[in-house]
Protein backbone atom coordinates (compact mmCIF):
# COMPACT_ATOMS: atom_id res chain seq x y z
CA UNK A 1 0.00 0.00 0.00
CA UNK A 2 2.80 2.35 1.04
CA UNK A 3 4.75 1.43 -2.09
CA UNK A 4 1.84 2.12 -4.42
CA UNK A 5 1.30 5.56 -2.78
CA UNK A 6 4.96 6.36 -3.31
CA UNK A 7 4.67 5.26 -6.94
CA UNK A 8 1.59 7.47 -7.47
CA UNK A 9 3.48 10.40 -5.91
CA UNK A 10 6.44 9.79 -8.21
CA UNK A 11 4.18 9.55 -11.28
CA UNK A 12 2.44 12.80 -10.27
CA UNK A 13 5.80 14.53 -9.87
CA UNK A 14 6.89 13.23 -13.28
CA UNK A 15 3.64 14.45 -14.91
CA UNK A 16 3.96 17.87 -13.28
CA UNK A 17 7.60 18.13 -14.28
CA UNK A 18 6.89 17.24 -17.92
CA UNK A 19 3.90 19.63 -17.98
CA UNK A 20 6.23 22.39 -16.78
CA UNK A 21 8.60 21.59 -19.64
CA UNK A 22 6.04 21.72 -22.44
CA UNK A 23 3.87 24.60 -21.33
CA UNK A 24 4.62 27.84 -23.27
CA UNK A 25 5.29 29.72 -20.06
CA UNK A 26 7.61 27.07 -18.71
CA UNK A 27 10.66 28.28 -16.86
CA UNK A 28 13.94 26.74 -17.90
CA UNK A 29 15.59 27.75 -14.64
CA UNK A 30 15.57 30.84 -12.47
CA UNK A 31 13.61 33.89 -13.54
CA UNK A 32 15.35 37.21 -14.22
CA UNK A 33 18.56 36.08 -12.57
CA UNK A 34 19.74 33.70 -9.91
CA UNK A 35 19.98 35.53 -6.58
CA UNK A 36 23.37 37.15 -6.10
CA UNK A 37 24.20 35.23 -2.89
CA UNK A 38 25.84 32.59 -5.11
CA UNK A 39 29.43 33.10 -6.27
CA UNK A 40 28.48 33.14 -9.95
CA UNK A 41 25.17 34.23 -11.41
CA UNK A 42 23.47 35.52 -14.52
CA UNK A 43 21.19 38.50 -15.01
CA UNK A 44 18.93 38.52 -18.03
CA UNK A 45 16.62 41.24 -19.27
CA UNK A 46 13.25 41.07 -20.95
CA UNK A 47 12.84 40.82 -24.70
CA UNK A 48 12.47 44.26 -26.29
CA UNK A 49 12.66 45.96 -29.67
CA UNK A 50 16.24 47.16 -30.14
CA UNK A 51 16.62 50.91 -30.48
CA UNK A 52 20.31 50.70 -31.48
CA UNK A 53 19.54 48.31 -34.34
CA UNK A 54 16.65 50.48 -35.41
CA UNK A 55 18.75 53.66 -35.38
CA UNK A 56 21.81 52.09 -37.06
CA UNK A 57 20.22 49.78 -39.60
CA UNK A 58 16.59 50.81 -39.73
CA UNK A 59 15.80 47.24 -38.74
CA UNK A 60 13.11 46.09 -36.36
CA UNK A 61 14.63 43.39 -34.18
CA UNK A 62 13.93 41.71 -30.87
CA UNK A 63 16.87 41.71 -28.50
CA UNK A 64 17.65 40.14 -25.12
CA UNK A 65 20.65 41.21 -23.01
CA UNK A 66 22.39 39.18 -20.33
CA UNK A 67 25.36 39.55 -18.03
CA UNK A 68 27.25 36.96 -16.03
CA UNK A 69 29.17 37.77 -12.85
CA UNK A 70 31.53 35.63 -10.84
CA UNK A 71 33.16 36.40 -7.52
CA UNK A 72 36.05 34.05 -8.27
CA UNK A 73 38.87 34.33 -10.75
CA UNK A 74 37.50 32.44 -13.71
CA UNK A 75 38.42 31.79 -17.30
CA UNK A 76 37.00 30.70 -20.67
CA UNK A 77 33.54 32.10 -20.03
CA UNK A 78 30.86 31.34 -22.59
CA UNK A 79 27.58 33.19 -22.13
CA UNK A 80 24.75 32.00 -24.36
CA UNK A 81 21.47 33.81 -24.86
CA UNK A 82 18.54 32.16 -26.63
CA UNK A 83 15.46 34.05 -27.76
CA UNK A 84 12.18 32.13 -27.88
CA UNK A 85 8.88 33.00 -29.44
CA UNK A 86 5.86 31.65 -27.60
CA UNK A 87 3.84 29.38 -29.86
CA UNK A 88 0.42 27.80 -29.44
CA UNK A 89 1.77 24.41 -28.40
CA UNK A 90 5.43 25.00 -27.79
CA UNK A 91 8.08 27.73 -27.78
CA UNK A 92 10.18 28.32 -30.89
CA UNK A 93 13.84 29.21 -30.83
CA UNK A 94 14.32 32.21 -33.11
CA UNK A 95 17.93 33.13 -32.32
CA UNK A 96 20.83 32.13 -30.15
CA UNK A 97 24.27 33.58 -29.72
CA UNK A 98 27.30 32.68 -27.60
CA UNK A 99 29.77 35.29 -26.45
CA UNK A 100 33.18 33.98 -25.45
CA UNK A 101 35.70 35.58 -23.17
CA UNK A 102 39.01 33.80 -23.41
CA UNK A 103 41.74 34.10 -20.81
CA UNK A 104 41.43 34.97 -17.14
CA UNK A 105 38.62 37.13 -15.81
CA UNK A 106 39.13 38.89 -12.49
CA UNK A 107 36.62 38.36 -9.66
CA UNK A 108 33.57 40.55 -10.16
CA UNK A 109 34.22 41.06 -13.86
CA UNK A 110 31.08 41.25 -15.96
CA UNK A 111 30.81 39.22 -19.14
CA UNK A 112 28.16 40.72 -21.41
CA UNK A 113 26.03 39.34 -24.17
CA UNK A 114 24.29 42.37 -25.67
CA UNK A 115 24.27 41.18 -29.25
CA UNK A 116 21.65 38.42 -29.40
CA UNK A 117 18.82 39.56 -31.61
CA UNK A 118 16.19 38.36 -34.04
CA UNK A 119 15.34 40.44 -37.09
CA UNK A 120 11.56 40.75 -37.44
CA UNK A 121 10.07 39.73 -40.77
CA UNK A 122 6.76 41.57 -40.23
CA UNK A 123 4.92 43.48 -37.51
CA UNK A 124 2.62 40.68 -36.35
CA UNK A 125 2.21 40.69 -32.56
CA UNK A 126 4.15 37.83 -30.94
CA UNK A 127 5.34 37.00 -27.46
CA UNK A 128 9.04 36.59 -26.67
CA UNK A 129 11.36 35.74 -23.82
CA UNK A 130 15.06 34.92 -23.42
CA UNK A 131 17.02 32.19 -21.68
CA UNK A 132 20.67 32.65 -20.70
CA UNK A 133 23.20 30.09 -19.55
CA UNK A 134 26.93 30.11 -19.09
CA UNK A 135 29.99 27.92 -18.72
CA UNK A 136 33.22 28.98 -17.05
CA UNK A 137 36.39 27.35 -15.77
CA UNK A 138 36.94 27.88 -12.06
CA UNK A 139 39.85 26.19 -10.29
CA UNK A 140 40.47 24.03 -13.39
CA UNK A 141 36.88 22.74 -13.25
CA UNK A 142 34.22 23.51 -15.82
CA UNK A 143 31.21 25.02 -14.02
CA UNK A 144 27.75 25.50 -15.56
CA UNK A 145 25.37 28.25 -14.52
CA UNK A 146 21.82 26.92 -14.88
CA UNK A 147 19.58 28.45 -17.57
CA UNK A 148 17.90 31.64 -16.39
CA UNK A 149 14.77 33.00 -18.04
CA UNK A 150 13.58 36.56 -18.58
CA UNK A 151 11.30 37.77 -15.82
CA UNK A 152 8.47 38.61 -18.20
CA UNK A 153 7.17 37.35 -21.50
CA UNK A 154 6.80 40.46 -23.66
CA UNK A 155 4.32 41.02 -26.47
CA UNK A 156 6.09 42.80 -29.32
CA UNK A 157 5.15 43.83 -32.86
CA UNK A 158 7.50 41.33 -34.45
CA UNK A 159 6.59 38.30 -36.51
CA UNK A 160 8.57 35.67 -38.40
Amino acid at each position, binding site marked *: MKNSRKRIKLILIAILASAQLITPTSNAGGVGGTPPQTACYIEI*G*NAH*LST*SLNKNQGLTAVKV*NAISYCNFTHSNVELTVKIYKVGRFTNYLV*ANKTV*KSGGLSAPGMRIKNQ*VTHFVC*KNFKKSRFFGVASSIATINSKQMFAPPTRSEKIKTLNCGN
Partner: protein
Amino acid sequence: MESYRDEFLTPEDLEEERAYFSFVGELLNRHDSRYELEAKELVKQGRRFSRINESILQFKLDRIGCAFSLSEDQGETFQELSWTRLGWRKASKLEYLPFFFADCEAKVLLAK
Protein backbone atom coordinates in the same frame (compact mmCIF):
# COMPACT_ATOMS: atom_id res chain seq x y z
CA MET B 1 10.00 53.28 -30.78
CA GLU B 2 9.68 53.04 -27.00
CA SER B 3 13.12 53.02 -25.41
CA TYR B 4 13.93 50.10 -23.13
CA ARG B 5 16.91 49.76 -20.82
CA ASP B 6 17.97 46.84 -18.65
CA GLU B 7 18.87 48.00 -15.15
CA PHE B 8 22.10 46.00 -15.16
CA LEU B 9 23.49 47.83 -18.20
CA THR B 10 25.62 50.94 -17.73
CA PRO B 11 25.76 53.89 -20.17
CA GLU B 12 29.17 52.51 -21.28
CA ASP B 13 27.54 49.16 -22.09
CA LEU B 14 24.94 50.92 -24.22
CA GLU B 15 27.64 52.91 -25.99
CA GLU B 16 29.54 49.68 -26.70
CA GLU B 17 26.36 48.17 -28.11
CA ARG B 18 25.77 51.16 -30.37
CA ALA B 19 29.39 50.95 -31.58
CA TYR B 20 29.00 47.22 -32.29
CA PHE B 21 25.87 47.61 -34.41
CA SER B 22 27.33 50.63 -36.13
CA PHE B 23 30.33 48.46 -37.12
CA VAL B 24 27.93 45.77 -38.42
CA GLY B 25 26.29 48.49 -40.52
CA GLU B 26 29.65 49.62 -41.86
CA LEU B 27 30.53 46.07 -42.92
CA LEU B 28 27.13 45.64 -44.54
CA ASN B 29 27.58 48.85 -46.57
CA ARG B 30 31.17 48.01 -47.52
CA HIS B 31 30.58 44.37 -48.54
CA ASP B 32 26.94 44.47 -49.61
CA SER B 33 27.49 42.94 -53.06
CA ARG B 34 29.86 40.25 -51.73
CA TYR B 35 27.33 39.26 -49.05
CA GLU B 36 24.56 39.06 -51.64
CA LEU B 37 26.66 36.75 -53.83
CA GLU B 38 27.61 34.63 -50.83
CA ALA B 39 23.96 34.39 -49.76
CA LYS B 40 23.04 33.03 -53.19
CA GLU B 41 25.91 30.55 -53.01
CA LEU B 42 24.87 29.42 -49.53
CA VAL B 43 21.23 28.94 -50.51
CA LYS B 44 22.38 26.84 -53.46
CA GLN B 45 24.97 24.72 -51.65
CA GLY B 46 23.72 24.69 -48.04
CA ARG B 47 27.16 25.30 -46.57
CA ARG B 48 29.88 27.90 -47.03
CA PHE B 49 33.31 28.54 -45.57
CA SER B 50 35.26 31.76 -45.40
CA ARG B 51 38.40 32.87 -43.65
CA ILE B 52 39.37 35.89 -41.55
CA ASN B 53 43.10 35.73 -40.73
CA GLU B 54 43.57 32.37 -38.93
CA SER B 55 39.87 31.83 -38.21
CA ILE B 56 37.64 29.72 -40.45
CA LEU B 57 33.98 30.68 -40.53
CA GLN B 58 31.33 28.13 -41.43
CA PHE B 59 27.75 29.00 -42.37
CA LYS B 60 25.29 26.14 -42.59
CA LEU B 61 21.69 26.43 -43.69
CA ASP B 62 18.86 24.28 -42.41
CA ARG B 63 15.19 24.37 -43.43
CA ILE B 64 14.37 27.47 -41.42
CA GLY B 65 17.61 29.12 -40.35
CA CYS B 66 21.34 29.52 -40.55
CA ALA B 67 24.06 28.46 -38.10
CA PHE B 68 27.42 30.12 -37.76
CA SER B 69 30.40 28.13 -36.43
CA LEU B 70 33.98 29.17 -35.93
CA SER B 71 37.22 27.22 -36.05
CA GLU B 72 40.42 28.54 -34.51
CA ASP B 73 42.44 25.38 -35.24
CA GLN B 74 42.61 25.33 -39.05
CA GLY B 75 39.24 23.57 -39.41
CA GLU B 76 39.93 20.63 -37.04
CA THR B 77 37.01 21.59 -34.79
CA PHE B 78 34.15 24.06 -35.14
CA GLN B 79 32.14 25.62 -32.35
CA GLU B 80 28.63 26.83 -33.11
CA LEU B 81 28.33 30.40 -31.87
CA SER B 82 25.13 31.59 -33.41
CA TRP B 83 21.91 30.52 -35.08
CA THR B 84 19.06 32.59 -36.40
CA ARG B 85 15.66 31.85 -37.82
CA LEU B 86 15.33 33.11 -41.39
CA GLY B 87 12.06 31.54 -42.47
CA TRP B 88 11.13 28.74 -44.84
CA ARG B 89 11.19 30.75 -48.04
CA LYS B 90 14.28 31.09 -50.21
CA ALA B 91 13.52 34.79 -50.76
CA SER B 92 13.44 35.39 -47.03
CA LYS B 93 16.79 33.64 -46.61
CA LEU B 94 18.35 35.72 -49.38
CA GLU B 95 16.99 38.91 -47.84
CA TYR B 96 18.25 38.37 -44.28
CA LEU B 97 21.51 36.44 -44.84
CA PRO B 98 23.68 39.51 -45.68
CA PHE B 99 22.93 41.06 -42.29
CA PHE B 100 23.68 37.73 -40.58
CA PHE B 101 27.03 37.51 -42.41
CA ALA B 102 27.95 41.07 -41.38
CA ASP B 103 26.96 40.39 -37.78
CA CYS B 104 29.08 37.20 -37.59
CA GLU B 105 32.09 38.79 -39.31
CA ALA B 106 31.89 41.79 -36.97
CA LYS B 107 32.09 39.46 -34.00
CA VAL B 108 35.20 37.72 -35.35
CA LEU B 109 36.90 40.98 -36.38
CA LEU B 110 36.27 42.67 -33.04
CA ALA B 111 37.57 39.66 -31.13
CA LYS B 112 40.92 39.95 -32.92
